[in-house]
């Protein structure tokens, strides 16, 4: 009896939410895990003032004040109680992410570019222009850090992987190296023809997302075997894989955000909005939105499912388009069942 179609996504246009406050390019951003108070987002900015925001709304919570130079890297621990930042003032800092207070300053010999907590938040990995990886024991910060040498130029990104037993680092020397934490030795190296622009690690599934040129590449994080590569229309600076691994998003020099289907590699959506190159893009831990940071000094939040009620976005049924129903599923024996099915779908959507 029912043979009609309702598809909110076709009728809706993406409304990105712009988070202002930074006065210079946003170069890095990171989400926390999901905590009893929601999830959080930290942004690293060349203005030296990293900011903490509520992850699902983009509402500003606080600014970490103390760095005396551009902040190149920022991260949060899983429960968002601690933050760490890497800066051009030759220090990495650890912060109390609830009070905003600076907890530790870790002096380095050159610009620090990247910071990463272990899952238990007890150790901090840093890397930067002095080409060394350092591991700090946060319960004993006075002690000298363990140092891993090997890269022949500045380290851009370093992160823990394989349950914090190994370390992945990407440097200007066009290599990505996998290190064993206990032996501190190099296990494997990937060499590229060009500089790697970003690296993201997904623990669930041990997937490494790497970008270089116009390519987004997916590797197995344990073996460093290539899974697949996807080409984008423009040079890409950062990419992020959805927690359920059905989509990935990427952004780069053409100021746009792209959303691709991970299995088919098909480009699904693209969005203009930023007024400068996109430097970083990350999916939220629940996959409902992704955040982008740009040369234009803003962060923008984008919906994964455009039109869905979530955070500050509200599903409003369009008044002018014909409202038709799609009723799917097992055979419907009565009209009433059909309506119930429809309302259940609509409920879950709104």
């Amino acid at each position, binding site marked *: 009896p029912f043979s009609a179609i309702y598809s909110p996504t076709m009728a*809706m246009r993406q409304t990105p939410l712009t988070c202002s*406050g930074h006065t210079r390019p946003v170069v890095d951003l990171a989400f926390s895990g999901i905590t009893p108070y929601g999830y959080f987002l930290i942004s690293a900015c060349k203005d030296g003032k990293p900011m*903490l925001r509520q992850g699902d709304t983009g509402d*500003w919570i*606080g600014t970490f004040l*103390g760095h005396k130079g551009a902040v190149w890297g920022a991260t949060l621990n899983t429960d968002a109680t601690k933050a760490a930042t890497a800066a051009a003032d030759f220090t990495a800092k650890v912060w109390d992410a*609830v009070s*905003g207070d600076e907890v530790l300053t870790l002096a380095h010999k050159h610009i620090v570019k990247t910071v990463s907590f272990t899952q238990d938040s007890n150790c901090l990995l840093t890397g930067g222009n002095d080409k060394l990886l350092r591991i700090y024991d946060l319960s004993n910060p006075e002690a000298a850090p363990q140092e891993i040498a090997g890269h022949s130029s500045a380290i851009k990104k370093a992160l823990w992987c394989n349950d914090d037993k190994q370390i992945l680092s990407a440097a200007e020397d066009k290599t990505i190296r996998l290190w064993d934490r206990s032996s501190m030795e190099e296990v494997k190296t990937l060499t590229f023809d060009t500089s790697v622009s970003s690296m993201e690690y997904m623990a669930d599934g041990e997937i490494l997302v790497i970008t270089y040129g116009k390519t987004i590449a997916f590797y197995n994080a344990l073996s460093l075997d290539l899974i697949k590569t996807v080409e984008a229309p423009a040079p890409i600076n950062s990419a992020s894989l959805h927690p359920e691994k059905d989509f990935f998003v990427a952004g780069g020099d053409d100021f746009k955000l792209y959303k691709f289907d991970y299995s088919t590699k098909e480009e699904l959506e693209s969005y203009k909005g930023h007024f400068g190159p996109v430097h970083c893009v990350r999916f939220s831990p629940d996959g409902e939105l992704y955040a982008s940071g740009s040369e234009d000094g803003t962060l923008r939040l984008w919906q994964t499912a455009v039109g869905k009620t979530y955070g*500050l976005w509200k599903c409003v049924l369009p008044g002018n388009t014909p409202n038709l129903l799609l009723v799917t599923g097992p055979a419907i024996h009565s009209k009433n069942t059909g309506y119930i099915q429809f309302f259940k779908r609509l409920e879950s959507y709104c």
Partner: protein
Amino acid sequence: MATPVSVLRLPKGPDSNSRGFDPKSPRFIALCRTSIFTSAASEVDSVELQREQQARSVLRETFLRCLLSMTNKKVQFHMYEKVKVEATFGASDIDVLNFQVSDLHTPIGVQKEALIRSQDVISFTFDV
């Protein structure tokens, strides 16, 4: 013909007056440990805690009154690297991150108006 997704409001931006981290937020109240740990054992002893809170209030009030009484007075700041400077105190910002001073006497001259970063200050003295 696509309709833009409706938005309840825009994300809240930074507060120009403070660095944020609202101490009245539920997360802060639940999670924030005080920077000086209570002398009692980790198990909260309410009598001990009361006394400590009292002491903290007194100290805080004294400090704030001290800042008030310093206004327009000559203050000597003892800072790191054996720096001792004198200036006329103006005000402190709300998070006590910076002190606004006038006529800052430094080894290289007198600065008419200046901001002193409070984390660089070890101690300051003035005549009441």
